[in-house]
C-alpha cells in the first residue's frame, strides 16, 4: 500500500499521528510528514484507523 496525504486538506488534528506514529509525524516545521510512504501490511490496521479518523479526509491509501 502507498499512503498519500493531501497537505492542502491537512488541518493538523494529529489523529493520524496517534493512530499510526510509525507512519505520520508533525515535524518541527509544524507540517505533517509521512515517515513511511509504503508501510508494511502489518501496519494496515493503524493506517486504516488514521484514514477513517482524519477529520478532513486528507489521507488515502493507494493499493
Amino acid at each position: 500500500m502507498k499512503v498519500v496525504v493531501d497537505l492542502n486538506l491537512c488541518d493538523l488534528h494529529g489523529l493520524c499521528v496517534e493512530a499510526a506514529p510509525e507512519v505520520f509525524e508533525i515535524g518541527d516545521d509544524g507540517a505533517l510528514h509521512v515517515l513511511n510512504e509504503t508501510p508494511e501490511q502489518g501496519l494496515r490496521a493503524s493506517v486504516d484507523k488514521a484514514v477513517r479518523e482524519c477529520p478532513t479526509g486528507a489521507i488515502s491509501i493507494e493499493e
Partner: protein
Amino acid sequence: MLRRIVIVGASLAGLRAAETLRARGFDGELTIIGDEPHRPYDRPPLSKQVLQGSLEPEQAFFRQKDGYDALALDMRLGVRATSVDLRVKRVTLADGTWADYDRLIIATGARARSIPGMTPRAGLLVLRGLDDALALRRELMNASHVAIVGAGFIGLEVAASCRARGLQVTVIEALPVPLSPILAPTLCEMVAAMHRDHGVELRTGVTVSDVIGEARVAGVALSDGSRIGADVVVVSIGVTPNTEWLDSSGLTLDNGVVCDGFGQASPGVYAAGDVARVVNRWHGDSPRIEHWTNAVEQGVHAAENALAGPGASTSFSSVPYFWSDQYDRKIQFIGLARRHDEMVIVDGSLADRRLVALFRRGDRVVACLAVNQPRALIRYRKLLAAGASWEAALSETGAS
C-alpha cells in the same frame, strides 16, 4: 448467523459503522436509513466554510471519490424510522415499509433546540443540517445585522463566519461568561475578548424574552428590557437527541440511548454518536458526546461488536476530542475539564491567544486545551489516554 444489519441514521456514525462492517467482511444485507434526502455529509464545514461561501455544499458529502457501490448498501433516504420492535427485530419506517435485522445500530443523532414557545417565522433559523446551512447562507446574503442566541462553539463559529462576511453581529448568552461550564474562566474570557476584538457585540448574562417581528424577524427582546434589531436570528442553544422514535421500544432512554461499555442498548442493538450514551472506560461515565471523532469511534466500535457478538466484544475507551475554528485561531480540546481543580497554562499566553493549558483533577491530568498549538496536543493526548499523573504531565512540559 448474521444475515441482515440495519443502521438507522445516514450520519457520520452510521456511515463509519457501515464501512467497518464491510471492511470486516460482513457480506449480508446492509440497510441504512436516513430521514434527510441527502447521503451522509460532514457537519464541521457547515458553520464555517459553507456559511462563508468558500465551500460549495456538495463538497461536504462523504465518499465523493470512492462512491457507494463497493459498500453495497440498501440506502433508504428521505424516510424516517418511526419505531422498532425488539421482539421481532423490525424497524418500521414512516412510509409504511420496514426493515428486519439480526443486528441494529442506532445512529439517529440529535437536532437543534429551538427557543420554547417561539413560533417559526422567516429569518429565524437554527444550524444543524446541510439544508439549515444553505437556508442560513441564503439569508446572510441579504442581511446586515445577525443576532445569534447562544455562545456555544456553534454560535461562536457562526459569529466568526458572519463577521467574515462583513455583517454586524450580536451574540446573546445567558451565562455571564460564554463556555464557562466546559473551560476555565480565564480561557473563556480570552475567547470572549477575541470575538469582541473582531467586532462582535457579545451580550452576556441575559436571555431572549421574545423574538420581534410578525411574518419575518425584526430582532430580539432581552431579559434586561433592551432590544436588538436584526434581519436574521440564529438560535444555537444546543441539541436534543433524536430518540422519540424509540419511545415505545423498551430501550432505556435518558438524554440519549443508554448503552453499556460495548455500545449495546439491548442484546443485538447498538447505539453510536450524538444519540448514544456509551460507558467510556477512560472516564468511567457514560456521557452523551456530540463530537465528530466520537461519532467515528463509536460507529466503528458498534460495528465491530455487532459482528464479534457478546463473547468477543470490546469495551469502549476514548479520550474525548473536539476542535473549533474561529477567525485565525484553531482551538483544540481533549479530555474533560468539568469539575477540574486547577488549570495551568504551560506554554504560550492568554495575551497572544496562542497557548497550551492543562487541567488537573485530583492528582491526574484530565484535559488539555491548545490554541494554535497542534503539535503540543499530540503529546498530551498520549498522556491523557494513558491516565498520566499531573506530575508526569507537568514534567512533559519541562522536557519540551
